[in-house]
């Protein structure tokens, strides 16, 4: 039991990210409203970003900006002192991708609404079937 608690505490960020990812995935599959699905999609994407940021975290590391910038050529820079910058870079890209997807998704949602006057998927399908 003690081991389990240790595991849970040592990796709590990963548990939170999994929870958020499940919330997002559930919303994307189970929700009926198109905009709600888009909200779920964004939560899903942010959860993955949280996961990547957690990878880069180093205990005792500081921000990934070299201290006293230009005068510091003679200072040796130790990798263990700075947080891993690579996941941050990857996630900047992922955030941009998520806002791009959001824009296209909302444009499509507005287009669907223009045609059917509703955002509920079952009502739209009922309208299609009626024709």
């Amino acid at each position, binding site marked *: 039991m003690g081991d389990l608690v240790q595991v849970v505490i040592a990796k709590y960020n990963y548990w939170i990210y999994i929870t958020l990812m499940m919330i997002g*995935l559930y919303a*994307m599959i189970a929700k009926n409203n*198109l905009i709600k*699905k888009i909200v779920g*999609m964004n939560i*899903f*994407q942010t959860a*993955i970003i949280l*996961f*990547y940021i957690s*990878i880069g975290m180093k205990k005792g590391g500081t921000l990934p900006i070299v201290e006293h910038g230009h005068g510091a050529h003679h200072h040796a820079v130790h990798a263990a002192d700075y947080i891993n910058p*690579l*996941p941050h870079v*990857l996630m900047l*890209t*992922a955030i941009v*991708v998520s806002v*791009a*997807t959001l824009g*296209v*998704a909302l444009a*499509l*949602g507005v*287009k*669907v609404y223009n*045609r059917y006057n509703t955002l509920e*998927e079952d009502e*739209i399908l009922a309208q*299609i079937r009626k*024709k």
Partner: protein
Amino acid sequence: MSQDYPALLVIVPLLSAFIISAAGWVNKRLCFPLSVAALSVSAYSCIGLLLRVLNEGVVHYRLGGWPPPWGIAYYVDYLNGLVLCVVSVAALINLIATKKSIEQEFPEKTGPFYTLYVLFVTGMLGITVTGDAFNLYVLLEIGSITGYALLAMGDEDRAPLASLNYLYMGTIGACFYLLGVGYLYIVTGSLNMVDIAHILPGLYQSKAVTAAFIICMVGVWIKMAFFPLHAWLPNAYTFAPSAASSLIAPLMTKVMIYVMIRLILTVFTPAFAFTTLAVSHYIVWLACIAIVMGAILALAQHDLKKMLTYIIVAEVGYMVGGAWLGNRAGMTGAVLHIVNDALMTLCAFLVVCNIVYKVRGYAFADLKGLFAKMPFTMGAFVIGALSIIGVPPTCGFFSKWYLILGAIQAHHYDFMVALLFSSLINVVLFFRVFEIGFYEPFSDHEGHEHHSAVMAEAPLSMLIPLYIVTAGLILAGLYTGDIVNHIIRFVIPEGFI
């Protein structure tokens, strides 16, 4: 010049996409020639690159001049080279063939259409050429976002919703892939595919690697519409504008199959995929179900385009099954089928494009008397159909031959039965279309029946590219031996059974 082919083949369409977008605001007529020029340069570089690979072996290219794994690098081997050529040539032919159709369907928005078209091709080429797992994700999103937009502009009633559903599924797929890359990164610390492959052998027992493999595979399967995850594909492709569906249907699923094979062969290595994880049998069974269900669902359709989309679902089953048979013949069949299926799908969808251009419909009822009305288009359709069924000497026969050979060697008779069953269903499907087109009298939209329909063929600019593709189907069949012996033989690593 020639050492820059790997960069040029992506950069030229990318740069010209921005120029096309700007040109659309100045003079719309500039867009088409610019797109053709860009894709021609790209296709030329792809072919040049493949020839270089044939002469020199694997080609490396460092972007930004940084050595891998710190920078992003390209590794172009036989598999990339082949798929690159298919993608770029298919996109170029489709662009020329569908010019009239695009002008008919989007009189005002040709500028953004061509921009998105070229960006989509850039995304597909980039996915194929890259050697970096994360770079692949970004390019996948370019391909997807442009794809959603292109597919949504078809049928006013149904296309936006179908495309939105595709967007949800596609985002889940891409995010799963990204998550899988993250799992690989957390245990290896690298994003370069070759570098990951060097580090992984010590970690095969790690649960994180297993999870990474499963998540990546599920993500890729969603993107390629492998059977239980195929729900987005038929509607999205059916209601799309014909120029967009004939671009996206041949390329998207095939490129994703390429990604799957790349993950199996390069990143995780066959030893891990087939031996350490003993899941290949289950996946082949799933593929069998995919083939059978795809065929049966195709039988239930009442229009040509939707029938073709379900055939794509079945064909995805062929390739996934072939790749997972775990032997040389099966893998050869899968890679060969990427080429052949891209050509076959392109041919079939171009025929649909011609029919829609002239008849304004693709339901079976609209096809009556089409052999008399559009004999050349339907002639090409017959050859395409024979190839999808798998009649020699068209190329469809040879890839099926390798797949069946692989199934027998792996003692997967269920896969062989599924293949034969789907070929049989394809015979029924296409002969039903032939029958409607040949025997039923032509009727126009007012319901008047004409026994001797006037010939109203699609314009030459659409027919000539169609016949180039048709010739390609037969040539690919006749030169199968060369393709297999000179290219695909080297795709599969030594020591693979």
